[in-house]
Structures are given as structure tokens and as C-alpha cells.
């Protein structure tokens, strides 16, 4: 077995040095009734390295993917460009095969990258501070709701109906075993009914969670929400699905959000059928001691040199145990390093270009829609809802598009309640070229 360095001679010599004759003696403390005969599990026989490559290549070839199709799918995961350097950086064994940096003297690389990541996330979202990541956006949203309960010592949670249904489902699930009311309001017509959200607020409310751009890609003014949150002394939590938006549009912090959470997958992380992605979590400085998850801070070493450590650990599970701010231990450390590398390769200019191209592609697509298909009203970033006259028309289009290697959108009823099932959630990124849009429109015209 090529991953095991010992020869049988080594093993025997080691056993002998311990006064043992055979391997079985090492397991004498496990009752005999539980011992498995070696090789008795129902598993296939070992594959060679070449055999593994062949197996995975065959499986991969059975899938369609963004490289051999045109991907107009969003809903929380987006096909953005990943520069080669990003994958190179996270393939370096020193980043890839290190543990959580508990021994900071020999983990300064991971720690400085985390500090740079936190700084850039704070700047991109215009928040004071960021943690060193959560698993992904849905759990980050749920953790934000839990944090608001700790900060306000209130238990009522309001979430807008235009928040990604998966974030809502996980948040509701996390809160369902705890005291307090969970309220979903403001199911606008493919957008956010902010008035309804505000109307639902009261003095017992711990937080209001909205998404911006919302699940339908709609962009709207959050200023009224800030005022209402101040009036009711509750936290304003802004979720997002595609952080690339903030290279172009006003970020949550500029509206005075208390907590901003969402997906950082757009920052150089492949879609990978749903993970590993990156959960972004940023908040105001004054709440930092209630923030969940790992966080990296600046300090000095014994010689006075600048260095970095994991800090504020008194919030965490291994110290506080049941009183911890969260049970999170492992996070998405490597994805932070990827995002840091991505952001510096882009810089302000590159991030703005990604956002402009993503929005421009949707704008071009929407402006060319033929009769019988319409897009949702209002300002949209890179995602919108297309409405067809009937389900049959929509499904005929999906089939035509698929035949032309276009994943044209997600049928809305797969994600939210949509009784007439004639809608499509469509997203664009900088990976969509004009020719792809031409092909998309052509498929619409024949369907």
C-alpha cells in the first residue's frame, strides 16, 4: 500500500520492540465480538493510482459542466472565472496540508492570509470586521440570526420572503429548537416587499434578515430598513448570494448593516456541485465579541515583530463549551486563502469589471427577449426571473436550450412555491459572452 511506509519487517520489528508478537495484540482491548476479519468489509478491492484516475475520469465524463456548456444557473452558486494562480496557491502543500493554526509560530502563512482575507472582506462589504469564514451562506445566515439573539437578548426573528429559500430553510431549522418566534414576511412579486418586512417589526424583534441583491437578483434601497431597525432596536442583517455584486453596487455596510453574511464562492472558488464554498461573515466592531467562528488578529512576538494569531478564543467552543457563541470548529480556511489570492489578482478594477460584465450580460439578455417572455421589473444585478406564457412553453425552451448545450435557468418551482410553474431563475457572470446570449435568444425564438 503506497501510502503506508512500513514494510512487514518494520512492523514485526516494532511489535517485537514492544514485547508483542502480532498486530492482534494491539487490539486486545476491543472485545473479541467486535473484531472484523481483515478484508471482510463489503468494499471493492483496492485500485491503483491509474485505476483511480480512470474511474474518476469516467464519472466526470458522465456529467455536463460549465466548461462544455453555457451556464445561466445561479440561485446561490455562480460560474465565475477562476484564475490559475488561485488554484496554484491553494495547491501548495504548506497551505493545503496544514491544520488550524494552533501553533502560530509555524503557521504565520495561513494566519497572514486570513488577516488579509478579513481585511479585504471588510472593505468589499464595507463592514468593520470579518471573521475567518463560515461553512457557506445558509449556515452563516443562521449563525447571524443566533448572534442577534445574543446581542439583543431578544428572540423574535424576521426574515424576508425574498431571502434565498435555502438560507431560510436552514435558518428556520437552526432556530426551531430554541425559544422565540420565526417570521417569514414580504413575499413580493419576484422582489422584496420591504414595507411588509418593516410592518412586521416590533420591540421584541432581535433581527431582520433581508437579502441584497435578493434571491431574484433585485437591488433595492435599504435605507428605510436601517431607520426601522434603529426604531425597534434590532439588528439589521443583510445576506447575499454573489459577493461579486459589491465590486459595483453599494455594499451592505454603506447602508449601516449590523451583520453582512453570504456566499463568497464568487471569489475564485469553483462551483464543485455545491461545495466546498465560502461563508462570509462580517459585522460591526462593537459586536465582535459575539461573532461566531474563528478570527485572526494582529499581535507581536517575543522579539516585538509583527505576527498573527487566532484570537478571541474565549468566545469559542473549546473554552466556553456550552456557552460558546457557536459550535463551529473547522471552517473553510483554505477557501479564505483562495479568496485572498483572487481578490488581490483582481484589485478594485478587476472586481468592478467582473461585476460590470456580470450585470451587462443580464442587461443584454433581458433587452433582447422575444415576445412571450418577460423579465422581472426593477433594478437587477446579475440574476432575474423570466416569465413564460405557460409551463409548456418554458419547458419546451429548456429542452431546446439543453439540446444546444445551454443550461438556461433553474425552474423556479424547484426552489420556491410557484404554482403555475412557468418561471425561470436566470443568472449571468463574466463567463457569458455575447455569442452565448445570441444562442440563448435564438433558442427562445424557436421554442
Amino acid at each position: 500500500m503506497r501510502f503506508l511506509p512500513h514494510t512487514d519487517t518494520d512492523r514485526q520489528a516494532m511489535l517485537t520492540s514492544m514485547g508483542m508478537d502480532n498486530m492482534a495484540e494491539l487490539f486486545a482491548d476491543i472485545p473479541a465480538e467486535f473484531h472484523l476479519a481483515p478484508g471482510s468489509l463489503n468494499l471493492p478491492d483496492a485500485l491503483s493510482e491509474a485505476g483511480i484516475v480512470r474511474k474518476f475520469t469516467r464519472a466526470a465524463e458522465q456529467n455536463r459542466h460549465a466548461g462544455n456548456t453555457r451556464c445561466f444557473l445561479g440561485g446561490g452558486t455562480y460560474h465565475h472565472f477562476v484564475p490559475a494562480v488561485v488554484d496554484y496557491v491553494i495547491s501548495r502543500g504548506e497551505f493545503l496540508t496544514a491544520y488550524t493554526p494552533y501553533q502560530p509560530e509555524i503557521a504565520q502563512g495561513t494566519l497572514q492570509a486570513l488577516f488579509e482575507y478579513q481585511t479585504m472582506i471588510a472593505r468589499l462589504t464595507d463592514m468593520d470586521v470579518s471573521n475567518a469564514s463560515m461553512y457557506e451562506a445558509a449556515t452563516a445566515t443562521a449563525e447571524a440570526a443566533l448572534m442577534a439573539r445574543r446581542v439583543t437578548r431578544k428572540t423574535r426573528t424576521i426574515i424576508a420572503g425574498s431571502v434565498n429559500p435555502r438560507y431560510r430553510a436552514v435558518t428556520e431549522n437552526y432556530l426551531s429548537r430554541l425559544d422565540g418566534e420565526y417570521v417569514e414576511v414580504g413575499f413580493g412579486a419576484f422582489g422584496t416587499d420591504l414595507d411588509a418586512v418593516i410592518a412586521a417589526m416590533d420591540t421584541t424583534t432581535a433581527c431582520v434578515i433581508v437579502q441584497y441583491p435578493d434571491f431574484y437578483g433585485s437591488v433595492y434601497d435599504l435605507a428605510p430598513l436601517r431607520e426601522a431597525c434603529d426604531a425597534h432596536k434590532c439588528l439589521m442583517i443583510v445576506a447575499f448570494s454573489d459577493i461579486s455584486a459589491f465590486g459595483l453596487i453599494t455594499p451592505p455596510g454603506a447602508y449601516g448593516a449590523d451583520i453582512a453574511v453570504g456566499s463568497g464562492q464568487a471569489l475564485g472558488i469553483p462551483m464543485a456541485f455545491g461545495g466546498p464554498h465560502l461563508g462570509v461573515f462580517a459585522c460591526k466592531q462593537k459586536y465582535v465579541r459575539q461573532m461566531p467562528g474563528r478570527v485572526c488578529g494582529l499581535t507581536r512576538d517575543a522579539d516585538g515583530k509583527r505576527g498573527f494569531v487566532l484570537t478571541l478564543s474565549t468566545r469559542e467552543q473549546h473554552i466556553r463549551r456550552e456557552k460558546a457563541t457557536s459550535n463551529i470548529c473547522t471552517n473553510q480556511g483554505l477557501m479564505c486563502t483562495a479568496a485572498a489570492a483572487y481578490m488581490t489578482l483582481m484589485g478594485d478594477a478587476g472586481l468592478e469589471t467582473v461585476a460590470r460584465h456580470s450585470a451587462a450580460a443580464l442587461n443584454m439578455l433581458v433587452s433582447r427577449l422575444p415576445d412571450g417572455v418577460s423579465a422581472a421589473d426593477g433594478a437587477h444585478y446579475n440574476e432575474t426571473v423570466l416569465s413564460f406564457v405557460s409551463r409548456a412553453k418554458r419547458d419546451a425552451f429548456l429542452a431546446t436550450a439543453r439540446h444546444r448545450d445551454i443550461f438556461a435557468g433553474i425552474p423556479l418551482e424547484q426552489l420556491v412555491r410557484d404554482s403555475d410553474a412557468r418561471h425561470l431563475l436566470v443568472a449571468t457572470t463574466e463567463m457569458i459572452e455575447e455569442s452565448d446570449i445570441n444562442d440563448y435568444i435564438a433558442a427562445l425564438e424557436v421554442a
Partner: protein
Amino acid sequence: MMNAQYSAVSGMQHEEPLLFEHAHEAPESINLPGVASEIPLTLDAFKRKTPPRIPGLSEPEAVRHFVRLSQWNHGIETGFYPLGSCTMKYNPRVNEQVARLPGLAHVHPDQPEDSVQGILTLLYELQTWLAEIAGFSDVTLQPAAGAHGELVGLMMIRAALDARGDQHRKKVLVPDSAHGTNPASAALCGMFTVEIKSGPDGRIDLDELKRHLDDNVAALMMTNPNTAGTFESDIREICQLVHDAGGLVYGDGANLNALVGVARPGDMGLDCLHINVHKTFSTPHGGGGPGAGPVAVNDTLKPFLPVPRIIKDGDTYRIETRDSQSIGSVLSTLGQTGVYMRANAYISAFGRNHLHKIAQDAVLNANYILCRLKDVYHVPFSGLCKHECLLTDEYQEKHGVKTLDIAKQLIDLGFHPMTVYFPLIVHGAMLIEPTETESRETLDAFCNAMLEIAAQCEAGETDMLHEAPVKPFRRRLDETQAARKPVLVWQE
């Protein structure tokens, strides 16, 4: 400090400023594809007023920046990494290669099911293998990490108890040797934990357990082998007692490496087990994630598995998103699929015929270290260890040397320290987990270093132990200052 004219600090090891301190912006950003036409007028009102101030570096500068940072890190590819309870084993490179195949890495999670049959096959296969290896009837891949798996396990236990009318059962028994995530996870499920004291041998004390078993017990959370590295030989009785009292048994699979292919937690009476694939199945730790924490369950808990989940229907696979008894979803997607590709490749490489060698060599290596060190370091619990061995600083403390000093001196000698001050049930704990992927040569070198440190203590040559480490890029860091006035982002 960063204004120094030259960057080399030791040989060819370099200082490297923060990205924000680099002198200049890149002349132009990366060349991006896409539609360069107009953004809609409706977005004009929402444009950012100020740029985010993300410092763009040219590609050569960016690569050099991150390569230099990487060189300040120690990884399993760099050297021995005996962190107890963390299972730092070699991460095969072929696993990285196959996980990056475009047909796996660039698949959107909402593609039609007929376009993702290949990846569903690999995920379903892994699900089946994990159930077989752990001895359970089914597995959910949704949890994103071990602590997340714990939460899911407790949610299912809660649901199962509620379904049988046991809403009042909220007491979760947790041995005092448990991982810190255990009590935190229980609190999130609206349950509370009661700590049960370990017996004199570091194992669960049956009488102590019985004392806590009553009508309010929801579950016992246990790790086996426990965090002292010893096997809970009374496991059958422990599970029986909890079940007889109407509770369920949750298994923390952090230490599954000791058992893989040799024995199965499911056969021992546990109701579920979370598996840290980033430990046992060698997916890279990445400096703190991504991991994955699938949970294996028996028939009692199977109806409550989270959705979405993969179902095999004849020769095709589909994704089930609704299930009346399910606890619901705990993640946006099916799970950390990219991590699971690597885990599948790892199990494929061992297969039926070699899998047991993982546990055998891991346990062999841990006992070898224990045997070589037991005369000079205090061993709190005698007898066999499993995949990790527990020592303390009791003998060295007489010379004023503590566990932390030993750990830091190891750094100067070229080894990543063991886990220190955990488990909490002994004073000055040093938990050493070598894993199966280390050679005897490496184990001997580490043991020699440990013996040398012990000898230094005996000889009273302890000054350098308090100073250590002096060789790495940074020396001991002031964690108190970092926590007192936290600086979490760079301010120019």
C-alpha cells in the same frame, strides 16, 4: 519593520509585507472575459460611492506574495504533525488531481439530474462505503464539518425522541474528556449537557453513568476510542444502559482512525456516528477547513436524516428534497462535494483488501511512541493506547518545564507539537497522534527529540526550553495582547 530595505531574514526565508503595504498597484488588472456592454440604467442609483480599496498586485507579485507566506507554514507535506485528535495523515496528490477534473469541479448544484449522474454515482458510492465501514444502515453527506455533524446527529436524536413522545428528555450526558464542540452542539438543540466524571482509568465509569441515567436523559455523547486514546471496552454495556434508560447514544467519530477496517462502531450499539473525513479519510485540512462531517445512522434514526439526499432508483440517481420525518436541511446543498471526491479516492486506493492497515499501522505507531517515551514521561492511564497516546508533564514540571515549553522546543527541533492541554481530565496533557503514514525513521526521530527534552530537564538545562522557539520565522506570540484590543483588519 517592513521598511527594511532587504527582505531575507534567514538564509532565503523572506519577510513579506501585507498586501496593503505593497508599494504600487498593478498597471492593469487581470484580463477578464465577458460582455463589455452597458450595465442597466436602473443600477446607476446603486453604484458604490467609494472603491473597496482592494490592492491589486501584478500576477508575478501576487504569486511571490503567497508563495512566501506559504513558506512560513508547516504542513503534513513539510514534516511530522502529531496533533492528537486531529489525524494529520498524508493527503495523496492523486486525490487533488481527480477532484479538479472539470466534470466534477465545474458542475452547478442545480443542473438537471440527468447531467450529473457521474458525480451522484461517486457520492452515493461513498455514502454506501461509509455506512459499511462504520457499521450503520445509512449516511447523510450534508454536514460540512465534524461539529456540524454533531449538531445534525443531535437534531436527529431530538426528532426521534419527540416522535416517540419523549419531548421532556433534554439531558445530554457528556464525559469530561469530550471534545469542546459536544456541549456547544447540545445547546443549539435546546438541550443541556451534564458532565460525567471519568473513572481512574480515564474511561467512562459505569457506576457514575448509572447515577445520571434517569427519565430525562436524551442521549450520551461519546468518543471511542476516547480522547485519552484508550478504548472504552465496556462499550456494549454503556450503550445498553443508555438504551434501557430510554436514551440514545451519539458517537463522535473524531477517533475513527483507530478502528477503520478493524471494528465498527455501529456493531457496538451506537445509534449514530459523525465521521470527520478530513481526519480518517485524508481530505486535506487546508489550514482549518474545508472538512466534512457525514453522519452514519442506524434504523432508529434513519427516518430523520436531513434532506436533500441522494436516492438510487434502479440504475439512476436522484436527489430527494422532501421527506416527512426528516429534520430538514442544514446546508444550502448536498454537502461539501469536492471534499467527498477526495474521500472516495482515498477509500478506493485502500479498498477491501488494505483498509484495515490504516487502523493497524496507526495503532502500531502510537503504541510504539508510547513504549519509547513511557519511562521518561508520565503516562496517566496505563495499558494499550489506540491511535494516539496521552502523556503529561508531571515529571518535567518538577524542573519548572511545562507542556507548553516542551511543545515549543519541539518546534526548534523540527517537529510540529502534539495537541497540548487536551483532554482536560489530566494536568498538562500532551496528546500524540502519529497516524499510519509515518515511517519508523520519523517516529524514532520524534521520540529522540522528546527524550532529549526530558534529559535537558533532568540536567537542569531548562533555560532554552523557556525561550523556545527561537528558530522559526516568529517567536512566541502575545495572545493576550491580541485578545485584549483585537485588531482584525488592517488600518493604514
